[in-house]
């Protein structure tokens, strides 16, 4: 019994640790860059994106019988990034993934999992011609593009018109922090909703992209969390944003408790901070309006920046027929396919002049026009090594001080900035 029990403990405890290794070879990169033939791609499992992906693949395959695309949704996991990281390590990543998070690019790059798109003769020029100045935010620290900026979901404030009407608000004042707080108090006092707004209070590294970061981008006129190798968020602007959210939590206008479901759709909150992808989920459920995120001084809408919530396309080093993959990438992000993507999903292609390029679409869908305007002023997560660790460090400090009020907000940001600066230096 003693031996068996000891063995059982070793066996079960052994399951605590993971393993992984690499081996094999990637072949000649130059030859692969010119090679053509069948390829595989992955896209998101969002229903609208799947519909777009299927038509794009069908259109390509109809004209390229010898270079067919096999497409599938990204396999299920705790997150897409985790699945992609595992696929890179296993050497079975597809050629292209139309759902690559910019925050994970530095990690995938370190793993040797990405193909620099500059390695194609027209790679750099295609990206910069299509996206304009916005493209610069997606360059890696070595100056190369390991991702093609594909589409953004500029984060804005959605409000429930019926809930606001119940609180006696017809034209919501939400442009300054004082306005936003006053409107929130009015909505909650009138019991039009349990809380004014419900950003996810959980501790995942990416949650700050949907509470702190959009308002920080707006307050600073477009600053990233890290610039020139140093954190920027422990500034006066950063502390103002954090203090604003602290007041929202302290006054019970936002909730620190995890919510299962969509609080905005359910009517638990009167506002949501989200991008245009969510419009499809609100259809027939919420009568919504949208405004830019607030700033302390109430900047005019035309000057407000926000978080892009972009997802990009990257080419993975396991790809053998990279010549075909590059052609597919250009085909899928052509003016025609970007227009189809916009029509199918309501998400903004990351190309310059979206509003004028697809003027017909925005004339027919005026709800989306404000997002097209906002798309020209978006801020991306910084493309630096240790990106996820940096965001988790920030989230831990934000969670402790802003959401749970267990530390002074300013002190928490100062301490987090010191840690983040160390992490940036390690890269």
């Amino acid at each position, binding site marked *: *019994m*003693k031996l068996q*029990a*000891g063995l*059982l*403990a*070793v*066996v*079960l*405890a*052994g*399951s*605590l*640790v*993971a*393993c*992984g*290794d*690499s*081996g*094999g*070879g*990637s*072949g000649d990169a130059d030859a692969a860059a010119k090679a053509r033939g069948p390829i595989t791609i992955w896209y998101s499992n969002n229903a609208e994106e799947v519909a777009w992906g299927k038509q794009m693949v069908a259109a390509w395959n109809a004209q390229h019988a010898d270079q067919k695309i096999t497409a599938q949704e990204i396999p299920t996991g705790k*997150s897409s*990034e985790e699945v992609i*990281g595992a696929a*890179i*390590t*296993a*050497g079975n*990543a597809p050629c292209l993934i139309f759902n690559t998070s910019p925050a994970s690019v530095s*990690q995938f790059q*370190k*793993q*040797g*999992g990405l193909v620099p798109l500059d390695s194609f003769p027209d790679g750099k020029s295609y990206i910069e011609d299509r996206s304009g100045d916005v493209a610069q935010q997606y360059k890696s620290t070595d100056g190369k593009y390991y991702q093609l900026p594909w589409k953004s979901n500029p984060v804005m404030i959605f409000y429930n018109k019926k809930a606001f009407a119940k609180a006696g608000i017809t034209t919501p004042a939400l442009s300054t922090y004082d306005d936003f707080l006053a409107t929130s108090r009015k909505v909650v006092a009138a019991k039009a909703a*349990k809380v004014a707004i419900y950003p*996810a*209070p*959980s*501790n*995942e*590294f990416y949650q700050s992209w949907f509470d702190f970061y959009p308002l920080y981008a707006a307050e600073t006129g477009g600053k990233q969390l890290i610039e020139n190798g140093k954190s920027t968020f422990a500034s006066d602007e950063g502390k103002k944003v954090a203090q604003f959210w602290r007041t929202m939590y302290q006054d019970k206008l936002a*909730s*620190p*408790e*995890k919510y*299962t479901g969509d609080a905005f759709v359910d009517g638990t909150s009167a506002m949501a901070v989200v991008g245009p992808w969510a419009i499809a989920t609100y259809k027939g459920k919420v009568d919504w309006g949208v405004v830019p995120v607030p700033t302390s001084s109430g900047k005019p809408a035309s000057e407000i920046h926000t978080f892009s919530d972009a997802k990009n396309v990257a080419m993975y*080093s*396991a790809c053998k027929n990279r010549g075909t993959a590059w052609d597919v990438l250009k085909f899928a992000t052509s003016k025609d396919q970007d227009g189809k993507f916009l029509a199918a999903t309501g998400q903004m292609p990351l190309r310059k002049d979206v509003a004028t390029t697809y003027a017909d679409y925005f004339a027919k869908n005026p709800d989306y026009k404000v997002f097209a305007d906002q798309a020209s002023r978006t801020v991306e997560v910084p493309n630096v090594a*240790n990106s*996820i*660790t940096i965001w*988790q460090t920030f989230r*831990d400090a934000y*969670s*402790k001080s802003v959401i*749970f009020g*267990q530390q002074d907000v300013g002190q928490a940001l100062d301490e987090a900035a010191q840690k983040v600066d160390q992490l940036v230096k390690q890269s």
Partner: protein
Amino acid sequence: MRRGPLTRVMGEHPVGTAFVTPYVVFLAAVFAYPLGFAVYMSFHDYFFAAPGAVVDRPFVGFENYVTVLTDPAVQRSFVNVVIFLVINVPLTVVLSLGLANALNAAIRWRTFFRVSYYVPYVTASVAVVGVWLFLFNSNGLVNSILGPLAPDPSWLVNSKLAMPTIAIYVTWKQLGFFILLYLAALQNVSKDLYEAAEMDGAGRWKSFLNVTVPGVRPATTLVVLVATVTGANLFTEPYLLTGGGGPDGASASPVLIMYQRGIEQGHPDVGAAIGVLLVIGVLLVALIERRFVGREED
């Protein structure tokens, strides 16, 4: 006596060895190799890389262990898991033995109760977590019943109550499995012993203490060990129930931190160091438990 070549390789009972071999191979491939590899990773600047990628993974000695042991989040997670085990393991033993004993008696609706206790164990955590979120949030059923006695902040966002709530949740969820273990063990306790105890004037409580408890001691050893090892593996509940180990890391477990550092943040070397420390910790706790709980078998 001269031993043949088959006996030399396969031992005195070659058929038995042949039957055991597939499981030994399975253990070696699925548990022993990863464990050994994790130890290797923990002593190197290791990260996962694409096949064929030229990467440098130098030996770094105890650097990853120093990183882990000086990380306040990791320290907190180990304290948290100790809190969890101190609540979860005794509660599991007491409740599962008590309920198994009750279910072993000829009571009405016995099958219904047995199924009721087992259903949470076989239900996916993701589904059950949703119910507990509903029960324990500030406007949930539990607080509605407690009224003015409800804690503020509420259970799952209260840094003092989050981990105990998770410990109770896990106890409830796994109870069915441990009740089954005890039910099986109870079938082996001789009826003669109960009759002898009765003749000696022992009541039901004294019979339980002096016949049942010693009679199921091997099962108790197993329950304690399994509850400890699965408790040390705690991940799903802090990941889902308290939104990533909140509030402020008060319910973060070592495995959750391993996941964050090793998988999300791309530092499997640091994750492996946490894992190795956890394995050592679990083995030590298991040995201590064996010494105290299983002493009469030795």
